[in-house]
Structure formats: C-alpha cells, structure tokens
C-alpha cells in the first residue's frame, strides 16, 4: 500500500511541477513588463521536445544514451525519499527515507551531470560541468552543517522520524540552534534550485545548464523533467525538516496536496529573488554570498555544541 502512495506522490509531482514552472515564468514576465508565455507553456515545451528528432556529437559514448534516464532516476528517487505520503510508521519506507540517502542521491545526480558534460566534448558543456562541481562544493558544506544540528538534536538520521518529531513539537523552533539553522538551510536550498543570482536556468552556454547543450529531443525532455523534480525536491527537503506541518493531516493524499501547494508557493516566490539582480561570477560573487550562509550555519552549530 505504501508503494502505491509513493508512486502517487511521484507522479503527481511530475504532473504538477511544469505548472509551477509556468506560473513563475508568467510572474517574471509580468515583472519585466512583458505579457509572457501562458502558464501551461512548459507542458507545451516538453511535448514539442518529445516530437523532435535528435543529433549527437561524434565523440559521445554510452554515457550520452544512459544519462537522461539516470538523471531522472536520481531526481525521482530523491523526491520519493521525502516522507510526505508516509510517516515513521511505514516500516520499509522509513528505512529508505534518510538524510544521507537524499544527499548522496543528489551527489549521484551531480556526478552523472558532470560526466555527461565531459562526454559530449562540447567546450561549453565542459565549463558548465566544472561549475556544477564547484557549486556543489560550496553548497554541500553549509547544508551539512545545518543538518548536523538537526540530526544530533533528534538523534537519528531518518527523515520520517525527524519530521514526526518536529510535527509533534518535541523538537522544534524552541531550540535556538534549530531556528538559526533553518535560515541558512533555506538559503542553501535556494542556491541548489539553480536560479539567478547563482545561475540562469533558461540560458545555455557556460552556465549550469550548459551541459544540456548537446542533448535534444526526448532526452532533453526527460532531463528537463528531472531538473524540475530536483528543484521541487530541494525545496521539499527544507519543508519536510523545518516546516512539516503538512504531515499533521492524517490522510496521505490530503497531505500530499498541501505539500505540493507549499512547494509551489516557495518555487514561485523564488521569482522575487531571481528577478531582481544579475548573475554572480563563480569566484567572487559566489564566495562572498556563501560566506554569509556559512557564518549563519556555523553560529547555529556553535550554539548546538554549547548545548543550547
């Protein structure tokens, strides 16, 4: 029964994610005094991609054929690891929903992304693969420092267990280190979604999505969905730990609907940050802003160590 709910969770995320993407594109267009595309535009984009033919570069190997599906598997598995439609009671799935499983599935995503970039021998893909790795280096530390506070505070690494503890209220914002960690964590999860000022999710060359420059047709469609899913997952990660109020409702389907609505809200609100600045260069801008997040997370860790 749990697996059915899990499948439902995944499929509904896949169905709803392009809608949120479309809403945020419309909102951004409104800010820029344009009419902008319709909110269902992303669905039309994916459908059009599926119907197109494909070209590939002569230097590619099996990685090119396999990586779209691998990326999708990683992103989907990451989303399934969020304990939305199941809680700490479900025995098999609570052995799967674990913080480190989620983080390392994200690492697998990054690995395949980088390798796919190098595979095509496209110069821009290579540069963006290098960027992807470097951004991973910056964000991983801050995220883990925040998570240490939560894990050691609750004594377990299981997401469903932590989620249920915060829901019950036995561990939560009353602990100062937890509340400070939540700010830094939200910041890092925003960076991971790959929006401006850290990256431009729609442009191509040299940027985070430069890897995808050589993918086309149905491969590109699958990767698009995978990236959307990953953005959803990353925001959902923040919600599940720091604001799991959706799980208070007992019915899994209802909690799924509330949860998706929350993620959609966060995603669209990201436009407010996204739209109002340029992209940072990775050396100066990234380092400077991430230092703030690092300082906040280190403060929360220091508070935890001192026992507060």
């Amino acid at each position, binding site marked *: 029964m749990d697996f059915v709910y*899990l499948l439902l969770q*995944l499929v509904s995320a896949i169905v709803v994610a392009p809608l949120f993407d479309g809403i945020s594109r419309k909102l951004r267009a409104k800010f820029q005094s344009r009419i902008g595309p319709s909110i269902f535009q992303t669905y039309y984009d994916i459908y059009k991609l*599926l119907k197109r*033919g*494909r*070209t590939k*570069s*002569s*230097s590619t*190997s*099996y*990685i090119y054929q396999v990586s*779209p599906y691998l990326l*999708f*598997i990683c992103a*989907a*598995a990451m989303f399934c690891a969020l304990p939305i439609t199941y809680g700490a009671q479900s025995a*098999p799935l609570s052995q*799967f929903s*674990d913080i480190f*499983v989620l*983080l*390392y*599935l994200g*690492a697998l995503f990054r*690995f395949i992304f*980088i390798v796919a970039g*190098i595979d*095509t*021998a*496209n*110069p*821009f*893909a*290579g*540069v963006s*693969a*290098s*960027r992807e*790795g470097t951004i991973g*280096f910056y964000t991983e*530390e801050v995220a883990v420092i925040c998570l*240490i506070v939560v*894990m*050691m505070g609750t*004594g*377990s*690494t*299981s997401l469903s267990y932590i989620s249920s503890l915060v829901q019950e209220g036995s561990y939560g914002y009353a602990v100062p280190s937890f509340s400070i960690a939540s700010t830094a964590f939200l910041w890092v999860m925003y960076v991971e979604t790959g929006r401006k000022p850290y990256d431009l999710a729609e442009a191509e060359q040299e940027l985070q999505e430069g890897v995808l*420059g*050589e993918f086309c*047709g*149905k491969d590109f469609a699958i990767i698009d969905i995978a990236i959307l899913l990953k953005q959803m997952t990353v925001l959902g990660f923040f919600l599940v730990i720091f604001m799991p109020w959706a799980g208070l409702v007992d019915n899994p389907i209802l909690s799924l609907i509330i949860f998706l609505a929350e993620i959609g809200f966060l995603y669209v609100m990201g436009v407010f940050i996204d739209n109002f600045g340029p992209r940072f260069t990775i*050396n100066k801008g990234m*380092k400077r802003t991430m230092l703030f997040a690092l300082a906040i997370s280190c403060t929360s*860790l220091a508070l*935890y*160590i*001192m*026992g507060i």
Partner: protein
Amino acid sequence: MQTIYTLFLLASLLSLALYKKPLLAQKVGFGLASVISLYAAVFFFSNFDETLIWKLPGNFISLPQFRLDSVGMFFSFLVSFIAFAVSLFSFDYAKFYEKKANLAVFASLFNAFILSMLLVIASDNVFSFMLLWEIMTLISALLILINDGEGASKNVMIYLGIAQIGASCLMVALIIMASIAGTFEFSKFDHLEMGMGMSITLFSLLLIGLGSKAGMFPFHVWLPIAYCQCPSNASALMSGVMIKVALFAFIKFSLLLPQFAYFGYILLTMGALSCIFGIIYALVSNDYKASIAYSSCENVGIIFLGLGGAFYGLGTNSPIIALIGFIAAFFHILNHAVFKSLLFMLSGNVFTATNTRDMDALGGLHKKMPITSIIFFVTALSICALPPLNGFASEWIVYKTMVIGGIEEGASSRFFFSLAIIALSITGAMAIMAFSKVYGAIFLGVARDTKCVEEAKEVSFSRLLPLGLLASLCVGFGLFMNDVVSILSKIVLTIIPQTSVSTYGFISMPIIVMVMVLCSILPFIFLYLLKANNKEVRVTDPWACGFIYNKNMQIGSNSFTGDIRKALSFLLKHEQEIKLDGYFSKVVYTKKTHDLFWEKLYAPVIDMVMLIADKIGIFQNGRTNLYAGYILIYLCLVLIFGYYYL
C-alpha cells in the same frame, strides 16, 4: 594454517628457480599465487569464529608463535582475497616489465610479499612482529624498484625513509608496552597498568608509527611518489592490502592500552585532516595514478573517522558507539581494499595501452577499451560513495557513528563529531569532482594527443576477469549491506565488551534499489504513452558556436578544476609557466602544483640531513682496507668500554 604459509614459501622459491625462463616463471609464479590465495581466502573465511595457534619448531632465541583470532582471520581473508584478484591480473600484466626486471624475481617477490603480510597479521611476539614488518617493507621497496627508471632510487629512498621513521616509533612503543606487561607475547598482554599521560604518549607513538605506513596525514607524501613508481599490480597490492595490515596492527595494539575518550578525539582530528588534504591533492593532480594514490590517503582518513568513533565509545564505556564504529571501520576497510586495488589495476590497463600518465594527453579511450571504461565507471561511482554501491554503505555507517556519538551532552564530543561530519561531507563533494574528472579526462570526449591513443586496444580476457569479479563485489557488498554488517558484528563483538547485536535502525539498500528501479520504468511508460520520436540519431561535430571544432576546445583536466584551485589558493602553491615564441607559434602553458607539506615540512629536513651527510662523507673514501680499520677501532673501543663500565 601452516600449509598456506609453506605453500607460499614454496611458490616463491620455485619461481626464483625458474630464473632462466622468465615468461614461464611469470605464468607459474602468478598462477600458483592465485591458486594458493584462493584456497587461503576460502580457508580464512570459513574459520572466522575460531582461533588458531601455531608454533615454529626448533630452538630459536625467543619462541615465535603465530596466533590468529577472529579479527586476524578477517584481515587474512582480506589479504588473500585481494591477492587472488591481483595475481590473476598479473598473470598477463607482468610481461610488460620483461625488459626492466627478471620476471622470475618479480613473481618470487610477489609471493614473498603476500607471505610476509600474512605472517605479520599472525605474529604473536614483539620480535617476530618487528622482523616480519621490516621484511614486508623491504620486499615492497624491491617491488617498487622493479619499474626501474630515472628517479626510481630516489622515490624508493623517500618511501623507505618514512617507513623507517614509522618503524622506530612503533618499536619504541611496543618495547615500552612489553616492559610494562612483563612479557613479549601479545596474547599475554592482559591489562596494562599505566597512567593517562603514558597511555596517550604510547597511543600517539603507535599512531605515528602505523599511520605513516597507512598513509595518514602528514605522512601521506610517500603515497603518490611510491605508487606512481611501482608497477600497477604491485601498487594494487600495496595500496589495497599493506595499508590494511598497518591498520590491523594499529587496532590490535591500541586495544591493549587502557582506553580514554581522548584517543577518539585524536583519531577524529587526524582522520578529518587526512580526508580533506588527501582529496584536495587528488583533485588538483593531473596524473591519474597520483590522484588515485592521494585518494588512498582520503579513504584512510575515513577509516580513521570510524575508528575514532569506536575508540571514543570504548573510552566512555558506550558499547553501542564502539560496535557501530568498528563495524563502519571494518566495512570501509573491506570496501577500500576492493575498489582501490580495482582502480590501480584499471590504471595499469590504461598505462600499458597508452604509455602515459598525464590526463591532459588522453581522452576518448572508451571507443578503444569499452569494458575497461565501464568497469572504471562502476568503480568511480563506488569510490565516491554513491548509492546503491558499497562505498555508500560503509560511509553511511560512518555517518551513523558520528551522529550517535554526537548526541551526548559534552561540548568537546559534540565539537569533534560535528567536525568529522563536516570533513566527510566536504570530502564527498570534492571526491565527486576528482573522480568524474579522472573518468572523463581518460575515457570520454576526444583524444587530446592522438599519438598516445592510436594504438590502444582492449586488454585480454584474463586481465578483465578479476576486474569484473571485483566490480561485481562492489555492487554486491552494497546490495547485501545488512548481511555483511551482521558478519562483521560477530567479528567485532570479540574485541569489545558485550552489547546487543541489533542493526540499530540501518537503512536497507534493497529498498533503495527497488525504488530506483521503479523510477526507471516511469520514463519509458511516459515516452510510450506520449508517442515520442524514436528516429535514428544524427551524428555531428560538437557545437562550438559556429567555429570549426578542434579537439583542444574541450575541457581538460587542468582547467576543470580551475575555479576550485582559485578558491583554495591559500593552500596550494602553483607554479605557472607561459612560453610565448612570437605571435604565430604555439603557446606552451604549464602549471604545476606542489604539495604544501612536502615543501614546508619535509624538504627543509631533507636538505639539512643532506648537508650533514656531505660533511660526514669524507670518511667514506672507497677503500675497503680503511673500512676494516674502522671496524677494528670500534671493536677496541667497545671492549674497553665494556671492561671498565659493565
């Protein structure tokens, strides 16, 4: 047990006897080694819960006794299993060294090396342990020298120098422990009574002595130097197995001391530093063998993190932390042996096919060597600890140790465990970059220097068979994580005080695989339902913004890590050289990274020692008569000294 040792000795002598026929000696020597090690692996595996004792017959000064308990059985199993895989590989690989050294000597040294490692694990007596330890070091140095070339002797000297520093610290520590216990037999060291200061000093001496052999920071400098010089099957054996023997000795001896929580803190710090520095140097290196060697340092750091948690648990009397810590360390030891020897053997395949170690000259090797490429991919995935392979399984258990250890109230324990988790996660992020770079620069893309890659072809089946076997073990240990954990917990429970054997809420790898398989079916259903375009893919050149594509446009190993190098420029010293020869000719750009610790820590000491040695060198004028005279003077002095003072 004694049959295995005598068989190895016979195999070694037999391959030496075939001195005149090197190729036959190669087949005989390595073939015998693989058969005997397979038998040994099965034997040790089936005897995990027994203790075997064996005394050497005869009338020696101190009765050497060899004793294998559960932990020793596990390590002997590990040694023999990896030796089996490597000797199968060497069956065909060793012929590339025919011109550099006599293959009979190579095979004989190989067998002797395996024998010395097994005997080190089994020895029960201080003298036999030190003797066999030195023999093991010397044989490994000779194995490094098989790949003779320029600079070979210097590299061997560096390796031997650091090994000797370690051996002297180890000997001091062991002799002090033996004098406190009153006996020289390890099995009779019951409860040593000593104060906290003495215990911590002995612990540090053991850590320096054995950590230098294992490649812990700051003694990691010999790892790339020695492993790049060795032939690849020897470096697979040295890195996969000899390091584990050093770790086994460390665990065995530290357990004999009275435990304190400080042991855990020291190990956690050293482990964290090894992890970070190891992976930074692996990341910026342009030589794939050096990258793999530095990654050994990183993995030894991870093992020390697990051991730190375990010793902390023993020091504060919390058996659960100790149990999970030791399981994490042993599991990672097992996994590291498998994938590190696999990586070195794969790099040996690449080296014999292309004859270069520079990643900036390779590329596109997948078209020529597809099976090697796929196995390398699986190994790179498992060394970066990505689910669902074995690297992830053991790193997860290490994380679990840290989390359980950090729950308690003390600020110092929380600080050290948080530091450990931070170090491990940074390492994970950098390891992904390092290994995706190594894999991509060698096998993917287009060849950057077509001369090297032209003649490459896939290697023979006998070289691929052990690689495939080990790669399937990588997957297997990951999938059957819980079974491995239960076997290991039975072994670990023999060395820590009694506690319950529960899997304490571990993740279940089969469920992860099931979810991943479920997710993999979805896109196919999706594409089928929406009738996606499945026509033939058109092949073209990569997109270069309208320019004609040139193979130098793709990203290389040096430029891939450019941003991180700038970020870490306070730690890495670069030497950049740009040669311009007029407007129309090529620009030559070289950038070398120097190991910071080599420059600051080792180079001044080496220079000073060489200065002193030059001054003393006047005594060595080459005539043997004078040397005999020196001996005579020395004897007289000793006689006078002995007569008057003793």
